[in-house]
């Protein structure tokens, strides 16, 4: 059945063997004779997570739409599979043709979260590919990476040959086309890198060398070649209607995290929350037209057979024609007997009218993301939701008979005090009061989930200079809230592991020295760091010790405006001056309005057109 003859023998021994078999509906298989280059899209987490990622579906089909390019997939094998693969000497292989990754021309990792970096390394190793760029001689495939985390590429800068900053739909194809030409002329790998260095969005770390002072503080990035670009500017798609969107999705056999067809209706967000990286890197906002969305929906339903359809964006309600769009899609879905889900919808009167008809919401309940417990702190982070919005929303929902509410908050935000934590408790109390006023005693089934995450400063945001809380401070805050919520009925309180967030911060703001730590940590057994059962913080600390780096410098230290940031040579469009002014406004607790109501001069329009 495959080029790996012992695969069939080991599959019966592993959990969910369908993770490794490929052959799903709409998966693409091309013959060797038809193609000129082979790309493997690598997702550094398990199948169920990677397959839920819309970006993978888009980029996979975009590349495969080119006749002479073949894009295959690979995911991180789960523990049981990895052990057997290592025992039986089975190298990491692509799902489509079960070809060892080593035989690909290019392997592209998507970096969706920092905690998957150790998996990138582990996957390269499972593929028998040397980890460091300079160990990979001419015969090895090129290793590239993209996704939001690529906007601070430095922590993987010695492992990844080149990064793609921004949106990959067209730039991936351009790179592959150049690759095919390069391959035909038989020049060195370096010459290929030189050639693509002029493509917008391509960053090649080996063309730059970080400079440190005597305390190992980063003080500059030196170009090693005259022709290397001073700064690398991100690449984005212009018009979303013209951008590639697949008419079919790969439909998995097994249940995955988001098992449904999805249409992206809007890219980017104009609200300007100061902690949010997505809001910066996807600027400016672009919309897909209602007609185009309808057309895509039609095709997707027909080609996937999915029983559920979902709209995707950072903020569904910000879509300018949301009412006509939702009405038309609801009708279409009703006719086809499939359900429509509308995530990240703001709760105005229109939404309630719609949501009441959408089954899935009744089951899973309402969600709000105030992110902070007081209006003061919400001004600091520039989150525009008010308490009125939440309470009105809750009241409307309870009147419709729903009883499940989920609220998201961040802990450890800049300037946070215990008053702000009390604010979270007060919001929960008020919601309970509202519920009690509406529902009579007999049918009280209220369930409130307070889900908190730990604030982690992200590159290219207004808070990029700000430290995260140290681990003790965060833990006491969790403790404090736990105690309060323990005494309250109807509430489930969730929080994230502080050590995991600490590592996330280090990897998010790290510089090139982190590469060595990553390799050390991986050697001592670190992988799947985002999975509680695998995460081993002691090993990470050991790795930092061995390399002689204080991780706190990256996570818990406040940086100055004139410090050189590890990502200063990356241009996301939004200027540093704007981020500084936003950071200042945060301290002044001043709100910056949504830029749809008037340009606030973030600088992205220097390079891209804002509509």
């Amino acid at each position, binding site marked *: 059945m495959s080029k790996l003859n012992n695969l069939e023998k080991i599959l019966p021994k592993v959990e969910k*063997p369908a993770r490794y078999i490929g*052959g799903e509906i709409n998966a693409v298989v091309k013959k060797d004779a038809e193609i000129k280059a082979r790309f493997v899209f690598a997702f550094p987490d398990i199948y169920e997570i990677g397959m839920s990622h819309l970006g993978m579906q888009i980029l996979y089909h975009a590349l495969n739409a080119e006749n002479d390019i073949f894009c295959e997939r690979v995911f991180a094998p789960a523990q049981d599979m990895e052990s057997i693969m290592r025992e039986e000497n089975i190298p990491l292989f692509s799902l489509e043709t079960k070809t060892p990754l080593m035989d690909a021309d290019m392997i592209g990792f998507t970096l969706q979260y920092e905690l998957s970096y150790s998996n990138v390394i582990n996957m390269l190793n499972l593929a028998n590919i040397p980890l460091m760029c300079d160990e990979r001689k001419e015969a090895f495939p090129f290793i590239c990476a993209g996704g939001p985390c690529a906007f601070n590429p430095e922590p993987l800068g010695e492992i990844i040959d080149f990064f793609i900053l921004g949106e990959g739909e067209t730039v991936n194809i351009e790179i592959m086309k150049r690759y095919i030409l390069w391959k035909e002329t038989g020049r060195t790998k370096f010459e290929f890198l030189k050639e693509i260095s002029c493509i917008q969005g391509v960053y090649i770390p080996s063309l730059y060398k970080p400079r440190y002072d005597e305390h190992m503080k980063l003080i500059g990035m030196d170009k090693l070649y005259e022709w290397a670009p001073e700064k690398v500017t991100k690449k984005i798609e212009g018009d979303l209607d013209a951008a590639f969107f697949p008419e079919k999705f790969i439909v998995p056999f097994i249940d995955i995290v988001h098992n449904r067809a999805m249409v992206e209706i809007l890219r980017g967000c104009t609200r300007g929350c100061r902690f949010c990286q997505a809001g910066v890197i996807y600027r400016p906002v672009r919309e897909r037209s209602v007609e185009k969305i309808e057309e895509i929906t039609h095709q997707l339903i027909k080609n996937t*057979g999915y029983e559920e359809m979902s709209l995707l964006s950072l903020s569904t309600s910000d879509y300018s024609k949301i009412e006509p769009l939702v009405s038309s899609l609801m009708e279409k879905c009703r006719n086809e007997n499939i359900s429509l889900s509308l995530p990240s919808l703001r709760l105005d009167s229109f939404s309630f009218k719609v949501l009441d008809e959408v089954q899935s919401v009744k089951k899973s309940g309402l969600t709000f993301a105030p992110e902070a417990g007081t209006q003061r702190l919400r001004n600091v982070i520039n989150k525009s939701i008010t308490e009125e919005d939440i309470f009105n929303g809750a009241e409307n929902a309870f009147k419709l008979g729903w009883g499940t509410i989920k609220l998201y908050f961040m802990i450890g935000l800049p300037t946070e005090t215990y008053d702000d934590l009390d604010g979270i408790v007060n919001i929960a109390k008020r919601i309970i009061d509202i519920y009690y006023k509406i529902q009579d005693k007999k049918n009280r089934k209220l369930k409130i989930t307070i889900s908190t995450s730990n604030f982690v400063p992200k590159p290219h945001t207004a808070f990029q200079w700000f430290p995260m809380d140290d681990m003790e401070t965060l833990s006491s805050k969790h403790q404090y809230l736990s105690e309060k919520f323990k005494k309250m009925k109807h509430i489930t309180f969730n929080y994230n592991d502080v050590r995991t967030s600490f590592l996330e911060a280090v990897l998010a703001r790290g510089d090139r020295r982190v590469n060595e730590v990553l390799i050390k940590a991986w050697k001592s057994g670190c992988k799947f760091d985002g999975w509680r059962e695998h995460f081993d913080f002691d090993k990470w600390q050991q790795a930092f010790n061995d390399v002689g780096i204080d991780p706190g410098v990256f996570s818990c230290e406040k940086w100055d405006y004139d410090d050189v940031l590890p990502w200063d040579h990356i241009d996301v469009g939004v200027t540093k001056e704007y981020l500084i002014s936003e950071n200042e406004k945060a301290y002044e607790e001043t709100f910056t309005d949504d830029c749809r109501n008037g340009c606030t001069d973030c600088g992205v329009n220097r390079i891209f057109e804002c509509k």
Partner: protein
Amino acid sequence: MYKYLFQFTKTDYMKFISHLDLMSTFERAFRRADIKILYSQGFSPHPKLSIAHPLSVGISSTSEYMEVEIEERKEGLEILSRLNDVLPEGIRILNCKEMIEKKKSLAALVEYAAYDISFHIEDIEQDVLIKTIEDFLSEIEIIAIKKQMKTHTIKQVDIRPFIDAFELTKYSQGVATITAIIKTGSNGNLNPELLMQSFIESSEIKIDPNEIKIMRTELYFVKENKRIPFSSIN
């Protein structure tokens, strides 16, 4: 409402798809083929599609059966070809016919299943293998150890009454195929892997359980004390 009986294969990599995943694979395939199937009423409607007897993950089949209720009447051949156009490799509809008579559900009909079980063996004469099989069958009781998934306990069962046939049907180049017909369904069920485990334990032949390939070839119901293959259902 029109009820159809489907016969289909589940081979190659598709043997690694679980029963539940196979159901959703079919549900989506019907939608892709633009054939509307019926759903149960209620809060979470499920499709009126049922498979005669679940196949364990790792076992292939040349002959599975399911019944599906469809909104509009169509030619069996048309449904068959429309589905085959949109099914993954390894799942093929072999037959599709409308069931006119009202019958018990397919699941309730199942009494026996036939399997081809093949494995590698070395240095054993065919006669010896046949003799070993005969010895195995001649035992009055064959006690197998069954792990109870739910209670995590171990139960001893006599599987001899569940074995209707167990014979060597092919032996060449070190690969032996045993054809077994065993009790299947709600009136007594023997799983072919347990059968092979007992056989390996009772005989002294070395067979690597990981190398055994099992293929279901037919399901049977019983009428007037006769075993009748599902393929003859009208």
